[in-house]
């Protein structure tokens, strides 16, 4: 029985039940929550956070943290907006450029950690300032609007990605659902995925068993920051404008979603499905609080309490299994 309780599957199930309970409670208590249009709106609202949470999950599982993800969101969003506004590139190219920006950021993070041997917390704190600084520098501290540029079709195209709907279903939600499936497969079925888990559980034994720990860590960071960059592109797309302050604090939002979804900060444990559930719990909670007209001060208190509760619950489970 204890073995079952400690299994990742059980953990996921427990989070899923929290999500379902929250859903039922909100459906019963909150006017209009259960409406289809509201549920699809939640998916739209969650899209950006979910994508970032996926990425953060990779880094957490490999046993690191990425405090720069929020800055990567801003930087990638600004890069793609600038390309659209000033260089009139096609939207697809702008998106790809944004994602490449993320990949470079991830590579730099990974190198700082594996080769310069700076602990992830400090390394990514440093890069978070560098990336945000570069973002403000190239954006000149101002929103980069693509609305009134000579590129109106680009703005339209991006708007479909950012907030468009197909038969009422948000395009951004389709993106994060397909992405979630793909990343899940990568994490659980590929060599890279297994290496990431192994490195996170025990770096030393991973190294001894022939895994290239450095390369694995760098790959995890690249995945993380490419996803953060996608989050940035989605924000730019939704607002038709790049924001130099976009993504501020989103790294913590991503970490919180992952942790609520059962991803361990100690590494080696967690799943994309968990991160998605975590992001949905937070998104649903926010939506419910907003629908009930709860003021902003209380909202923060409630979300903080949920985070504490989720982690405490984990530790409680583990202790019970341990003794």
């Amino acid at each position, binding site marked *: 029985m204890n073995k079952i309780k400690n299994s990742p599957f059980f953990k996921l199930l427990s989070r899923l039940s929290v999500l379902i309970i929250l859903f039922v409670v909100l459906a019963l208590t909150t006017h209009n929550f259960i409406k289809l249009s*509201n549920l699809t709106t939640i998916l739209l609202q969650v899209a950006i956070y979910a994508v970032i949470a996926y990425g953060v999950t990779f880094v957490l599982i490999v046993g690191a943290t990425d405090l720069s993800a929020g800055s990567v969101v801003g930087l990638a969003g600004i890069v793609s907006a600038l390309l659209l506004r000033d260089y009139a590139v096609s939207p697809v190219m702008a998106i790809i450029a944004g994602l490449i920006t993320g990949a470079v950021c991830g590579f730099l993070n990974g*190198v700082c950690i594996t080769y310069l041997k700076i602990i992830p917390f400090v390394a990514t704190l440093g890069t978070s300032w560098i990336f945000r600084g570069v973002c403000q520098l190239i954006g000149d501290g*101002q929103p980069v609007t693509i609305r009134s540029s000579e590129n109106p079709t680009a703005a339209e195209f991006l708007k479909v990605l950012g907030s468009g709907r197909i038969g009422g279903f948000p395009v951004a939600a389709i993106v994060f659902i397909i992405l979630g499936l793909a990343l899940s497969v990568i994490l659980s079925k590929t060599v890279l995925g297994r290496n990431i888990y192994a490195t996170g559980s025990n770096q030393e034994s991973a190294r001894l068993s022939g895994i290239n720990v450095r390369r694995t860590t760098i790959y995890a960071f690249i995945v993380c920051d490419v996803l953060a960059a996608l989050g940035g592109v989605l924000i730019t797309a939704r*607002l038709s404008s790049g924001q130099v302050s976009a993504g501020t604090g989103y790294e913590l939002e991503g970490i919180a979603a992952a942790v609520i979804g059962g991803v361990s900060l100690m590494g080696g444990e967690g799943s994309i499905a968990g991160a998605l559930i975590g992001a949905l719990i937070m998104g649903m909670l926010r939506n419910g609080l907003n629908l009930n007209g709860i003021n902003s001060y209380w909202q923060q208190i409630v979300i903080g309490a949920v985070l504490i509760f989720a982690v405490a619950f984990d530790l409680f489970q583990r202790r019970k299994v341990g003794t």
Partner: protein
Amino acid sequence: MKRIFTLLLATSLLIGALSACGSSNPAPETEPAEEQSVQEETETLDTDTSTGKETIYAVFKDASSVFFAQMGAGAKAAAEELGYEIVIQNPASEAEIDKQISMVESAIEAEPIGMIVSCISSDALINSLAAVKEAGIPLTCTDAGDNEEHYDALYMTDCYQAAWDLCEFTCELIDYKGSIYLLNAVAGVQSCEQREQGFRECAKQYPEVEIINEWQDCDNDKTMAANMTLDMLTARDDDISAIVGLNENALMGVATAVDERGLDGEIVITGVDCSEDVQAYIRQGVINGSSSQDPYKMGYLAVYGIQQILDGEDLNHQVIDTGCAIVTKENIDNPEIQAVINP
């Protein structure tokens, strides 16, 4: 070998970062942008080298805000006219009160001929501004001063009054009856709180106008503002007469959400601030009107205020309201409005 490799990586990292900065220069090609990027550079270079002789130090609130960028442009223009160097500094966001305090303190050390400060918090900056006066430096404030009036002069928009006017404008558009959703930007910032108060007080005059929410802020995040607006629309079955965003971020988030919902034109949207994005939405008819302050004028007058003090005039802690205009689709192309929103 390993050490050499590490060193190589470190240098390549540095080069990478520098080239990223370098490549940024050609990127911003718009009119006001050009000016400020130059200004930002002199700012970082000047900090160490300036003797403080002919230099004015300006400490504003937020490096990522259009508002303070325009204020900087105004201050710079005035300083050029008068032949002074100007160093403009901004904390990364309005949340960084401590950063602003230390910026003011280190500016005093540079012994400038005058200082301009926009206080993020009128309480927290009291001691710092007192120190500026103790050092005998002429001091003007823009946008917000300290509560003990250490400044020689304060150039600002009366936020309470501006919000009051905005409320009158909004209520007229909804025929003085209906529900209003009021979305603010950040908690703990004086101007935001005054706007909230001014708007709510004014709305009390009209018994049939109801503000449907308690304090709600979007944490200065447009995505968050859009999400909150979508939820409020859902909660009310899209039955809201007007939505008001009390700064650029809140207003853009509101407009984005209403646009996404396909309700543009059906719900009155008003707010504060007038960025390029807001202007586009005004022209499109999504935003009915936005109250625009004149940050350029604030920065400009603040430098001239310092000149007056240097000339021996006593400005006597006076507060100068630099005024406010509500920008609408009808008046957006008027030259006097253009001068304010696109200086």
